């Protein structure tokens, strides 16, 4: 099993990992929301600076960070839904492991195409260099 630092150890097996990821992704999204409310404030307050911030978001490093943000958002959403399903229908507890794996299947199926789209400026020039674009 994956070993986690003590602060993140709480529940065994899938439940513990689901919980640790939920907490980490939640804090990550929270940090971005703080940044995002402030950056959107610049649209009215300082449009030039806003354009510079957005230029970073759409740069190559920025896009990798956006993929990370999207992954955190998607995982947190899917796992949150799993928690709500089990909370509302306690019988689903019997299938919690199935739900856990379903979370990851949906995560990959929805997330990989999303990452490919966001990273277009990374791979498109490479394809073009190879004469494939």
């Amino acid at each position, binding site marked *: 099993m994956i070993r986690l630092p003590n*602060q993140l150890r709480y*529940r*065994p*097996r899938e*439940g513990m990992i689901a*919980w640790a990821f*939920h*907490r980490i992704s*939640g*804090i990550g*999204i*929270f940090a971005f*929301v*703080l940044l995002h*409310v*402030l950056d*959107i*404030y*610049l*649209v*009215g307050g300082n*449009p*030039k600076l*806003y*354009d510079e911030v*957005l230029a970073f*978001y*759409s740069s190559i490093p*920025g*896009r990798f960070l*956006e993929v990370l*943000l*999207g992954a955190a*958002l*998607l995982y947190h*959403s899917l796992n*949150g*839904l799993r*928690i*709500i399903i*089990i*909370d509302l229908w*306690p*019988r689903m*507890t*019997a299938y*919690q492991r199935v739900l856990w794996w379903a979370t990851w299947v949906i995560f990959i199926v929805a997330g990989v195409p*999303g990452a490919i*789209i*966001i990273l*277009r*400026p990374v791979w498109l020039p490479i394809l073009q260099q190879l004469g494939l674009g």
Partner: protein
Amino acid sequence: MATEADKSVQVSPVSRGRMRPRGSRREVIVWYTMRVSGLMLFVLALAHFSILHFIYDPGAQTADFIANQRWNNFFWRAFDWLLLMNVLLHGFLGVRTVVTDYVHRPGLREATLLLLYTSAVLLFIIGTQVILTLPSATGAQ
């Protein structure tokens, strides 16, 4: 474990995000608020992220784009405001749980929570102000 599950069963804590609290009315309200706002965000936040990454590319997003295209109508301003309300509720109540999990020294805990609530109110004001007052060239608001 599967077949014995019935209405009166004590559900294993392994599966739950956090058991519904008992005794404190306030904690029960927080527990439900997290779930209701979470469901709202499942739709609102994922839609917001998809629209601004898959329909519009971040490379095309400037202050002008926000003012005159993205927020050019009431619907999308209302949509983003609803998203903001839910994300502030969900995010700050979530971090409140994290703080109470890890910060145990009484004075420090109160101070951290006070800082947390203050920043929530501040972000509410900033976010609401920009959504309500940002002018669109085409005048829609």
